[in-house]
């Protein structure tokens, strides 16, 4: 029991260290960050949408890129596919069940850069109450001073998830079992 408490205390210290180590806040205030998705419609075309509300922080230093980390919390209820009736359906029990699972989360466990801009993120993604480890490629787009006295860095990353892996079993047809997620973030250095 004592051990557990000590381990817990160390873990929470580490966790808070990770949080305080984050030197960038994602610019959701100015909407310079997007979490987009697309899914095949019947196998004939793409349906696009996005999550309008989320927040997050990341840690990045061009000198120590492999010490990077990112944490994102998404309000699942903010899903927006530009169609009220569809969005209502997506928020309901057939899909995201947002009253039961109002948040989706991603927290990286490892970020490895292969060169100056390209890398791979590994982390735990929680959606619909199910947590899975995923990894996907990211790319740093650029960094530098902005015209208003701040300092910004931007990344993009794409991944594909299988809906059934997260307990979302509604049948949209054989071409629509996976969703592509696109992460486009710009962070402002604190």
């Amino acid at each position: 029991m004592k051990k557990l408490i000590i381990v817990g205390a160390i873990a929470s210290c580490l966790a808070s260290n990770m949080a305080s180590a984050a030197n960038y806040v994602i610019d959701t205030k100015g909407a310079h960050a997007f979490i987009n998705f697309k899914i095949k419609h019947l196998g004939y075309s793409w349906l696009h949408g996005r999550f309008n509300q989320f927040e997050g922080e990341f840690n990045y230093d061009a000198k120590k890129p492999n010490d990077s980390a990112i944490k994102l919390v998404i309000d699942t209820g903010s899903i927006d596919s530009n169609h009220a009736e569809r969005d209502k359906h997506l928020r309901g029990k057939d899909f995201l069940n947002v009253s039961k699972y109002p948040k989706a989360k991603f927290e990286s466990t490892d970020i490895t850069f292969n060169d100056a801009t390209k890398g791979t993120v590994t982390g735990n993604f929680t959606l619909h109450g199910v947590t899975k480890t995923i990894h996907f490629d990211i790319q740093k787009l650029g960094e530098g001073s902005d015209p208003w006295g701040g300092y910004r860095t931007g990344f993009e990353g794409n991944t594909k998830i299988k809906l059934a892996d997260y307990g979302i079993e509604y049948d949209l047809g054989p071409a629509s079992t996976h969703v592509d997620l696109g992460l486009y973030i710009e962070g402002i250095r604190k």
Partner: protein
Amino acid sequence: MIRNSRNSYGWIAIVFHWLSAFVILGMFALGLYMVDLSYYDPWYRDALTLHKSIGVLVAVLIILRLIWKYCNAQVGEIESHRKFAKLQSRLASLAQVAMYLFLFVLFASGYLISTADGRGIDVFNLFMLPSMGEIFDQQSDIAGLVHLYVAWTLISVVSIHALAALYHHFILKDLTLKRMCIPQTEK
């Protein structure tokens, strides 16, 4: 015979009554049916289009019905000296007011579900009921819950209303149900 009299409904009110009754019960069934259709069901889209189009027309029907009601003589109560007759007739009027009220809540909430994204409601390709946009946060979800619960509440009151009519007809053996089916001649 066309207009209402002091002791009976006229044909117009009778047609309004039964038309609303059948359409509203049908809409309740259609509503429950359509939300459980699978994506590949041929009715997945048409059931909703039909529900929305009929819904707008029912709103028009009910407004016309209320206008007609107030342009006509008030149909009086059927005289009775039974115990609780007064109380029952007050409850009956309350149920009628409640049904109208719930219907308007259904019209409003149904409209708010579909129009939250700025899209209007296309009524049988005849005309477009314009959207007022998103008036409040989480509009389609909140309106959707209200729509579902009020529909069930309405149908509960409708059931009581129908049982009460049968009670009048078969147990009390009075004209309550008959005068809503065929206009009664003046006595």
